[in-house]
């Protein structure tokens, strides 16, 4: 017999469950691997508090993702869930996990390169092509189909591609 309220939910349970919540625009990366879950707290009464941070301030998917996170955690039968968004831990592309990087590649996106805290905008110029690996590429525009992507062209394999652009 299962007394759901007596089972203590752990932080690990929540992070594991949130692997199921994907970026609505990039279904191959979870919100955890994207690095936007900045805090998880479960108190002794099994009340869960999750803190998120936006990738871009103007990201329209934020509210949707908050709801998706809440609904997924509710499946764990907590006493309650509160999801808040703040800028206490500002997101940067360095927060994307190695698994997240693989997820971006799987979606055909060039992953952002690691930076040392300050993005030099020049690193957009010679982005590695996700199709053939060449760096002989040209930035077409720093703005793409969503705020977090830029558009490029590969001079070797003659394919257009998108990059998940680096942000500090």
């Amino acid at each position: 017999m299962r007394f759901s309220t007596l089972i203590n939910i752990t932080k690990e349970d929540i992070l594991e469950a949130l692997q199921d919540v994907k970026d609505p625009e990039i279904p191959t990366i979870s919100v955890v691997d994207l690095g936007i879950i900045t805090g998880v707290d479960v108190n002794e009464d099994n009340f869960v508090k999750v803190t998120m941070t936006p990738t871009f301030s103007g990201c329209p998917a934020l509210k949707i993702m908050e709801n998706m996170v809440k609904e997924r955690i509710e499946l764990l039968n907590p006493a309650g869930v509160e999801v808040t968004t703040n800028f206490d831990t500002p997101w940067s592309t360095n927060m994307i996990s190695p698994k997240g990087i693989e997820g971006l590649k799987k979606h055909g996106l060039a992953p952002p390169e690691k930076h040392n805290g300050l993005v030099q905008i020049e690193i957009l110029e010679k982005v590695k092509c996700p199709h053939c690996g060449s760096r002989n590429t040209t930035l077409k525009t720093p703005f793409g189909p969503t705020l977090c992507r830029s558009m490029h062209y590969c001079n070797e394999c003659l394919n257009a591609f998108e990059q998940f652009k680096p942000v500090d």
Partner: protein
Amino acid sequence: MNYNETQLIAIKEFLYKIADDQLIIGHRNSEWTGLGPLVEEDIAFSSIAQDKIGQAQHIYEILHSLGEADADTIAFTRSAADFKSCHLAEYPIGEYDFSLMRNFLFNHAEKIRFEMLADTSLEQLGKLAKKYRGEIKYHTMHADTWVKQLGRANEESHARMQTALNETFNLALGIFEESEYAGELKNMGIFEGEDILQQKWIEAITPILEAATLVIPDKNTWQPVYGGRKGYHTEYLEPMLEEMGEVFRLDPKAEW
């Protein structure tokens, strides 16, 4: 931190002017959606609009935490006289060269402002500033690229960019209209001052304009267009606000 009445007025006015600039110029940028001269420019102006309006929203949320109305009410129900935005932001989009030059001049000032605000004593704003400066880097990159390209492309594009610079420069100087509360802001460690921002801005735009072979109007001819920070606006703002808030005002209580 507890602020006295004057300090609170100073802070609110400061936040309003920053966010209002972003909302108004953001909306103007959005008017390029579907009209850009290239599809990439259509996307660029639309993306920049989305960034700026999103950024304005989070500053309005700080204002809300200080006792002002919620972000949507602030954005969509005030009349022109309540807006603290500069005139540069509210002019109609005009031709592409005008909108591009406006963005160039505005984005640099905005980027430097948030760099200066990264260490502000107003903690909520400091967190946003750190976030925004990284986003705005893409806005300045966009404008720099096109200003340099078009400044040097051919006679016509050069002439049009120079004309656009001449038309927007005094308006851009209006960004730096000082507040009567500048002293309070400085004493509280919130902001160093518009004069310092303007100086840094000139230093930032000069090399790019030189690379574009464009000439900043002679300093003796500068006539900053002030008034926006005090609620005096051009005839262009009110109709824009009418349009911007039209849907919201149909049913302010609607859930989106």
